[in-house]
């Protein structure tokens, strides 16, 4: 068991790849936002891919481990200490019984992942332990951690050992500044935006609004212009050019609500009545996960094939070969 001494801002249980098979009924995949960092954390402690861990957002929790175990912290850089002694990230660390982990603020990046040998063993809901906060599904009683809760742990089955580290060139390269370049694929509804509008989207700087979370990332930027299809349409689509007859939303869609683009992420709605001119591919999700309000995005257009190749490259990095012994 792990005792939640202080919950932090919003720390939730997640597992990889999240909740699949229930999308049609309105359940989004949830799961870790930065799956690259998350998978490496599980690898470090010898867990199976699907073991649940904690996603720590912005301000981390204070946790007390009731029995000895092995942990690893990956993702955003925080200032973790174990019983007051600084603890390395991207490395497996042995924890004695009763030890207290303090995490602090994220400095570089926004989301840190904690893996514990054996995984967090909360009850799966619809086949996954991932937290879907909005509907209170999964995780610890459906929501983020609260002070005083106790997290159950699974049996340690893996061959994890302390002193393993992720090679520097195998980690997501989280930049220290505020500037990001994010890949996008055109579509599904790029034909609703005129050429000038598409050009505008790709050439402009977009600022991440503070009202952004695991449901959607709201962006501020210039005005959009539309193609004929967006204005010359039946009344069932709705009045505004960004309105379309209700349809399904890809995860990662750049969902245009009036003039506000919202990138729909892990806990986003599965359907609705706005167009999705562009989609952020899965391989760029770690960038979204690690950016903070007021960070600035510029988008790079890539093909479906390029986006899939990048996904394969990252998948290949989430493997034993990326680990080394800490020197």
């Amino acid at each position, binding site marked *: 068991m792990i005792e939640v001494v202080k919950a932090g801002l919003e720390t939730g249980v997640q597992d990889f790849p999240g909740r699949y*098979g229930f999308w049609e009924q309105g359940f989004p995949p949830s799961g870790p936002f930065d799956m690259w960092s998350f998978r490496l954390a599980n690898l470090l402690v010898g867990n199976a891919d699907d073991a649940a861990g904690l996603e720590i957002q912005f301000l981390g929790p204070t946790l007390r481990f009731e029995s000895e175990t092995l942990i690893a912290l990956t993702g955003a850089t925080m200032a973790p200490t174990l019983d007051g002694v600084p603890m390395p990230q991207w490395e497996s660390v042995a924890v004695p019984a009763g030890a207290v982990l303090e995490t602090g603020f994220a400095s570089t990046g926004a989301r840190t992942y904690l893996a514990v040998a054996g995984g967090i063993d909360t009850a799966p809901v619809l086949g996954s332990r991932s937290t879907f906060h909005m509907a209170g599904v999964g995780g610890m009683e459906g929501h983020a951690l609260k002070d005083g809760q106790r997290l159950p742990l699974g049996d340690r089955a893996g061959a994890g050992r302390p002193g393993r580290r992720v090679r520097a060139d195998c980690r997501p390269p989280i930049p220290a500044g505020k500037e990001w370049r994010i890949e996008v694929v055109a579509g599904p509804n790029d034909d609703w935006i005129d050429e000038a509008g598409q050009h505008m989207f790709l050439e402009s700087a977009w600022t991440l609004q503070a009202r952004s979370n695991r449901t959607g990332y709201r962006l501020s930027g210039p005005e959009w212009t539309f193609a004929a299809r967006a204005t010359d349409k039946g009344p069932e689509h709705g009045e505004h050019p960004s309105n379309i007859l209700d349809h399904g939303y890809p995860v990662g869609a750049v969902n245009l609500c009036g003039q506000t683009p919202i990138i729909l992420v892990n806990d986003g*709605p599965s359907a609705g009545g706005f167009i999705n001119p562009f989609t952020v*591919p899965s391989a760029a999700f770690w960038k979204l996960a690690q950016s903070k309000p007021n960070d600035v995005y510029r988008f790079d257009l890539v093909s479906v094939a390029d986006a899939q190749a990048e996904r394969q490259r990252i998948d290949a990095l989430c493997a034993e070969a990326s680990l080394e012994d800490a020197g």
Partner: protein
Amino acid sequence: MIYDEPRFRPGGDRFIEMELGDELNFDLNFLVHALTARVREARLDGIVELLPNMASIVISYAPERIGYDDVLREIGALHGSLGSLEDVELPSPLYTFPVLYFDHLTRACWEDYCARIGEKEYDPDLMVRLNALESRAQLARIHSGTEYWVAALGFYPGLASLIALDPRCRLTAPKYNPPRTWTPKGTLGYGGSVTCLYPARTPGGYQIIGHSPVPVFDLEQRLRAFRDRLALLRPGDRVRFVPVGREEYDHVTAQVESGAYEHQVAAYAKFSIRAYHEWLATLDMSVRF
């Protein structure tokens, strides 16, 4: 219109939106669900999930198991093999929900909105006026006079978009602007030409005209109907609302609270598109219930 050839559009590296047409049209939605059923049956390797909606399907696929072009080819072939839509029959369970129309809960919600956000006409009266009906009683009679087709699910777990199968019972309603910050769970809402039951206490924009004590979403899976599911309804199911008085409403509420409530569902009829078209042709569109 229904497109002669479906249009495929990428949504990033692992989604494809398949557009079958671009209007709100039952035939189009039948086609969506018939094709969705066919794709599920085919169990194509690498197809992860399907998200059917009014006129389109979003396909989620695993690019490491099936390529983009192969998805288009395989699903295009299944679309081509569907044959005449007229011949399609879909299994379609029919759920019955008791509703207290013009109830105290939605009235209190409207009053709260008026007090905190802005004055607006009482929702049932607004709908009576905009749809040129005689009275609230007729609104209830028309709203409960048809079976509804579950055209799509989504936005929130368990939220179903319901469309009247009987064209004599179609109503329209504008959406709240600005939207409500809260809506009672179980509220019966109407927006555009879609009606819905709110699965949980959430914000909302539909006009609110009644309340059902019978849940459509239950995380705790307390009632028998939720034993194998959290969300009751599936696309292609049908829903019927039955007006009840306060006494029966209170009885059902108590049954739901005690966990003894049994959902009313008949799950043995197939929805025949040919028969639906023939039935539509027999209706006198000038009459209302």
